[in-house]
């Protein structure tokens, strides 16, 4: 029985050694920090294999909230970022952590809610009007409340509508990711602001649907930013350059355009183009 124990320990040490070696493998790998909404839409699953096939470079995606993704970049724990909050991105580059912001693609934000639509926002053309109707009828609204790109865009709309929903009975500030927020919105029959791709990929829609869309101001710009080698010498800059070049190239932009959910295009490539 003593020998059995020793064999077991040997096997476990082998497993441990394997795990360690996997982390230091010789293949070409870069780490991409992005947001959960982008990852959950399925875009990367569609896009990255194409890049890997063309260049043999493997991209590992770490998905987190916008704030955390940027912090991961700042710490040098990733080699490149794809996020969608221009003010934070500009600050990131200004502080020298990011090399340059390259516009990549955009999608839009929509308001979802129960089909019964008690606030009657269906067909409304501007988000500020929709928000005002929700506020005045005091219908439940689920906010991400996590300082993410979507949340900050939402705050902008309240500001433009000159409303303050904080500390009202109908405004639920959740501090959660897009998926959790949508789960709660559906379970509690609330309205919510979400990006189109997240909603399209979301599998728990129940009786909810898109009630307001098409507001030009609800425009979600994605950018790709390489981490600055000067700040973090270890980043795999050459590999990242290949990645950003590919994303911004015709091949990459075409791939983005071809990504569909239920036959509908989700992301609109706009590299090197004015808005």
């Amino acid at each position, binding site marked *: *029985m003593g020998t059995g124990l020793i064999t077991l*320990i040997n096997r*476990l*040490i082998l*497993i*441990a050694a*394997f*795990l*360690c070696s*996997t*982390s*230091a493998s010789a293949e070409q790998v870069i*780490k991409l920090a992005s947001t*959960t909404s982008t990852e*959950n839409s399925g875009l990367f*699953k569609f896009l990255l294999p194409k890049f890997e096939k063309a260049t043999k470079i493997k991209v*590992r*995606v*770490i*998905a*987190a909230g916008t704030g955390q993704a940027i912090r991961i970049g*700042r*710490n*040098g*724990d990733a080699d490149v970022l794809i996020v969608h909050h221009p003010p934070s991105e500009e600050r990131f580059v200004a502080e020298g952590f990011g090399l340059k912001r390259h516009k990549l693609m955009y999608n839009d934000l929509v308001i979802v809610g129960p089909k019964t639509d008690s606030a009657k926002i269906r067909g409304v053309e501007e988000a500020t009007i929709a928000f005002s109707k929700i506020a005045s009828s005091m219908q439940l609204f689920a906010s991400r409340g996590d300082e993410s790109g979507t949340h900050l865009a939402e705050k902008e709309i309240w500001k433009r509508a000159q409303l303050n929903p904080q500390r009202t009975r109908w405004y639920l500030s959740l501090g959660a*990711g*897009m*998926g*959790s927020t*949508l*789960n709660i919105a*559906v379970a509690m029959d609330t309205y919510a602001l979400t990006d189109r791709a997240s909603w399209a*990929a*979301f*599998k*728990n*829609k129940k009786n909810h649907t898109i009630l307001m869309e098409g507001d030009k101001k609800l425009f979600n710009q994605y950018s790709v930013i390489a981490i600055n080698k000067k700040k*973090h010498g*270890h980043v795999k800059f050459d590999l990242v350059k290949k990645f950003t070049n590919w994303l911004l190239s015709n091949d990459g932009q075409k791939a983005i355009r071809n990504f569909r959910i239920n036959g509908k295009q989700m992301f609109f490539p706009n590299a090197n183009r004015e808005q």
Partner: protein
Amino acid sequence: MAGTEDTANNFLDALLLALDLITGLNAGLIEIVGLSLSVSLGAVLIAGSIGLPLGAALAVYNFRGRQISIVLLNALMGLPPVFIGLTVYLLLSRSGPLGALDLLFTPTAMVIAQAILITPIVAALSRQTCQGLYEIYQEQLRSLGATPLNMMLTILWDARISLLTAIMAGFGRAIAEVGAVFIVGGNIENFTRVMTTTIALETSKGNLALAMALGIILVLLSIVVNGVASITADSVSRSKANR
């Protein structure tokens, strides 16, 4: 009534989906199960090597501050996993003290975080068990000429069945944990994605049936591992008694 019906349907769907995944030997499932097991077993190996003798030493040796150490150890059992995850993240981050090791967002980081999480549990339970035995044994063992170190080793061996339970408690805590492994592992597909982080991910995608199915499979996995441990312990002790 509609609510309960919905829930029952969801659960049934989940159960069927779980069976489907298992019998179909779904490749994705096998991958995350394999990683969950190796990460948690790795953590158990570390926690056992440190925690079991630590507990025995606390039981046997008398020293100033022994009582406080025991209280602290028991308190550490309640360390929040997210807190551990955050701390390990800050340590392993490139901007942190151990950044050069390049361990962040790898399975090794996950093993480390889980080991930190469960070592106090294993040590505290070991201390409890060993102290019980120590109180019974100590006169006789001292009479035979045993040093405290001898007593430690003798008690650890004699208590092996109970200590296995301590190890299993650690394993259970590790494999069910999601906060720490999410932060230090990054939930990277095909690399650091384990069962619990997959459940969290699928939930956030609204794939409730799949998330539930994975949860069921995780419970089954835990039962299987505990079953294997129990049978091994039983057969070992029975073989001794019948010789």
